[in-house]
């Protein structure tokens, strides 16, 4: 455990030291990135070692003799620690050139401070072994990420996004508190492990409460509302960490609770799969409808959380119906997708950050032609897009492949299990198709074609730190896609720690499956090389002419004539009209000499709309009526405190 604490200490010290070096901007960044980075490397090495040597590593500290702060690392924790440290490491490197405004020295230093705290708290969340430690780390994580979201607090939209995130993470935390409260009142112990002793009915209550609580962090529909607001507001490397790994702590929480509660009812799998299908499909539909590149990526995270939940749900159904293969496939596929998503989503956020940095806009329909000038970013983004669309031979395919295998196994079962596995398979297929539409849109409109507006800076790639991070992530997308073996083994270690009654799941039975993916990927590459050779041969000595794009007879094309992202997605969105209503703002053209008019279209998120109508308005109304309590008179406030104490003393 010592290396783990050492890494956390180094990471936090990197954040704190940056505050001391305010006046020297570059040195400050070097110290912060260097310390956070090296802390992450130590943590990464340590967690990889622990993952492959699965013993429980424990450490406990007593604070003021009131309660113990204790940590424990098993396979599941170690599995989640790997992406946490890895993505944070690359995000830290990326930030070195991303945070490049010496005039904002203080803001940058504060950003590094909270970044360090965020990494440390995420690592603590997945290793906490009692209620107090867990909640402490959880709150630390929520608060530090809140401060990171409002990094650019000058703009009202960002402050609003931060506020929304604050509300959501605390309402979510409230549910977790409630669940732990129920647990504590029954067991009287702070240890998480005692959850197994709860009676069956309480277990379900606790699971549902934590599912809501962790779900709001993970971004499960309809609790995802904060995500599309917070991600565009945060700096890109922070979005990468938040979307890539922080929301996965929600998934970790659900998995951990599932493991601790040790419930064998089919209900859990049913809840999780259903939530997964809804998040997956609606997430990607909303993603397709977005005009802002970072909002789009945020919705796409909702979709991927959906895929992960589908995998977990299939695993849970497998467990409750006693189908071991299905259980292992579902959970391993889900865990693999957790890792894969952390890789390609942070890659995409970093790529988007690079583009936004140069073009000075986040609007997809204002961009275009970026690939011609920014080749490295463009091709990294392309690899990320292919991976997130779940296409072989990239890593996104691998996780989905195993989830499919589990799902098909479930088709062999009866009744509810059959229906849900069936629906899960169809949903995965639809999600895959929609994700492809979504990312061909982003790539096609942002990177390809011609520029649709004039950009803020010249498009050039002079930031080696940012490029390095993206290249490493893109390379990993390909490596996992072609050689999934070792990574699947890591996922299996995580599954073993879940304690499904399977002991240490051996790798051998699955070697052929991962081997098949490797050999078919190789086969594909071989055929590709042959075709490439043929093409080179065919073009040998030929004259290649350059001309304008065929305008179908029109001779004066302008970049404004290009198909926009909004039109690209329009017909698909129209298909999903009931869940994705289109709101148009378009004053009619009138009069003999019509004035200039405008057109604004937006796809409404039904969760956001209904949550506003059903929950927020009544709550606001109620609180408005209760305003008289807050009168500003200190005497009465002291009275309230006294009254509360008396009530607590005598009646509870």
């Amino acid at each position, binding site marked *: 455990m010592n290396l783990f604490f050492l890494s956390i200490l180094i990471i936090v010290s990197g954040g704190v030291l940056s505050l001391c070096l305010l006046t020297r901007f570059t040195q400050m960044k070097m110290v912060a990135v260097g310390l956070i980075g090296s802390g992450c490397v130590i943590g990464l090495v340590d967690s990889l070692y622990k993952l492959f040597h699965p013993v429980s590593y424990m450490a406990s500290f007593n604070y003021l003799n009131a309660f113990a702060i204790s940590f424990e690392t098993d396979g599941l924790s170690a599995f989640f620690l790997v992406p946490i440290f890895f993505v944070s490491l690359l995000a830290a490197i990326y930030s070195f050139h991303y945070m490049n405004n010496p005039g904002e020295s203080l803001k940058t230093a504060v950003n590094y401070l909270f970044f360090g705290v965020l990494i440390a708290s995420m690592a603590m969340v997945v290793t906490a072994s009692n209620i107090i430690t867990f909640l402490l780390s959880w709150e630390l994580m929520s608060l530090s990420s809140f401060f990171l979201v409002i990094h650019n607090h000058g703009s009202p939209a960002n402050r609003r996004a931060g506020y929304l995130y604050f509300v959501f993470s605390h309402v979510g935390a409230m549910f977790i508190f409630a669940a732990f409260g129920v647990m504590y009142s029954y067991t009287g112990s702070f240890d998480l492990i005692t959850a197994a002793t709860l009676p069956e009915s309480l277990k379900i209550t606790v699971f549902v409460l934590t599912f809501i609580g962790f779900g709001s962090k993970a971004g499960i529909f309809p609790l995802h509302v904060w995500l599309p607001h917070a991600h565009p507001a945060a700096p890109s490397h922070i979005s990468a960490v938040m979307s890539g790994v922080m929301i996965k702590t929600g998934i970790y929480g659900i998995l951990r609770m599932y493991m601790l509660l040790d419930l064998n009812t089919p209900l859990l799998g049913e809840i999780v799969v259903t939530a997964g299908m809804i998040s997956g499909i609606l997430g990607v539909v909303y993603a397709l409808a977005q005009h802002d590149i970072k909002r789009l990526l945020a919705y796409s995270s909702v979709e991927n959380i959906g895929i992960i939940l589908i995998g977990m749900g299939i695993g849970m159904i497998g467990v409750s119906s006693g189908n071991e293969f299905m259980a292992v496939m579902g959970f391993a596929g889900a865990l693999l997708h957790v890792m894969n998503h952390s890789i390609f989503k942070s890659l995409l956020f970093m790529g988007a950050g690079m583009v936004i940095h140069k073009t000075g806009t986040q609007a997809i329909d204002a961009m275009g032609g970026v690939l011609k000038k920014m080749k490295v970013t463009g091709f990294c983004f392309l690899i990320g897009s292919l991976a997130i669309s779940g296409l072989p031979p990239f890593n996104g395919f691998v996780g989905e492949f195993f989830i499919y295998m589990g799902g098909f196994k479930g088709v062999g079962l009866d009744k509810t299990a059959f229906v849900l596995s069936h629906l899960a398979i169809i949903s995965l297929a639809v999600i895959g198709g929609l994700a*492809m539409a979504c990312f061909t849109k982003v790539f096609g409109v942002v990177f390809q074609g011609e520029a649709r507006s004039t950009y803020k800076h010249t498009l050039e790639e002079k930031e080696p730190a940012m490029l390095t991070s993206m290249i490493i992530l893109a390379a990993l997308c390909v490596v996992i896609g072609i050689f999934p073996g070792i990574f699947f083994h890591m996922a299996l270690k995580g599954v073993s720690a879940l304690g499904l009654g399977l002991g240490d799941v051996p790798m051998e039975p699955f070697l052929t499956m991962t081997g098949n993916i490797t050999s078919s990927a190789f086969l594909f590459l071989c055929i590709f090389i042959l075709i490439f050779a043929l093409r080179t041969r065919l073009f040998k000595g030929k004259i290649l002419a350059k001309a304008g794009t065929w305008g179908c007879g029109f001779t004066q094309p302008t970049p404004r004539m290009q198909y926009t992202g909004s039109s690209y997605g329009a017909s698909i969105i129209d298909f999903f009209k009931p869940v994705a209503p289109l709101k148009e703002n378009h004053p009619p053209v009138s009069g003999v000499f019509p004035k200039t008019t405008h057109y604004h279209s937006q796809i409404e998120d039904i969760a956001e709309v209904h949550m506003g109508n059903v929950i927020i308005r009544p709550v606001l109304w109620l609180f408005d009526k209760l305003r008289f309590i807050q009168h500003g008179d200190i005497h009465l406030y002291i009275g309230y405190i006294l009254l509360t104490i008396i009530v607590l003393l005598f009646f509870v």
Partner: protein
Amino acid sequence: MMIKPLILYVLAMLSAPFFSAVILKVKAFFGGKKGPPLLINYYTLIKLFKKGAVYSTSTTLIFKLGPMVSLCAALTVLLFLPMGGYPSVLSFNGDVIFIFYLLGLGRFFTIAAAMDTASPFEGMGAAREAYFPIICEATMFMILVLLYKLTQDLQLNAYFSGAQPAGLWSIAGSPMFFVLIALFIILLTENSRVPVDDPATHLELTMIHEVMVLDHSGPDLAFIELGSFYKLFFYSSLVARLVFPFKPGHFMLNIGQFTLVLFMVYVAVGVIESVMARYRMDKVPKFVLTSFVLAFFATIITLEFIR
């Protein structure tokens, strides 16, 4: 054992352009014309291979990658295709998932190559190419669920080679009939045939696949054409095998009957193209959804009545 599938693979690679010409011939017949020779596609390919190419100034490397990747995906998929009752060259547990995702990879690059040209028409075609296959994919996986339920296996070989799908017909005839129609609708949609898309139309606004390749020329266009021949061959072989699920015994006889049935499938596509008009764009999703509904019914029937 491996030699027969390999022979079939090579034959398929060589003969796919011929079969596509059958459609043209049928259409010409219905139009009262003589039509192009049956070897027209070979002549076109050779002509295109000999040519140079013109590239739009808007395009990037992706534009050149597109044709290569889509051809590569189609060729790889053919390796997994069981033909004439013989097993495919390659197969593994779960290969169906790999196959349909690989076709998705080909589509991704076709779309990306179209978006690369900055042409409004190609963007429009790309948007449609991204839309309709989503429904096809849902149908395909619905069919796979059904076939898995019947065979407990996840390989094309298990459904289309050896004693299958004759065995499937005998245990689940009515669902298989629905599957056949659904698969035929997928064939028409995925390969951009009438009534989803008209490959012979002259107005760019109404095209799907053809408009996406407007700017490709020379060997690049040849690759695209070849890729689409193979893709059509893949789906047609599946349909042909479903229509005539038997295996006469002798290798030559086997190939003969398979070729004949395959020929009939292409003729059917040609006939549909001759007697029907393309649907209005907003009607197309409904047409494709029909296949989904059919596959759905097939699954329900299997679940309720067939054990």
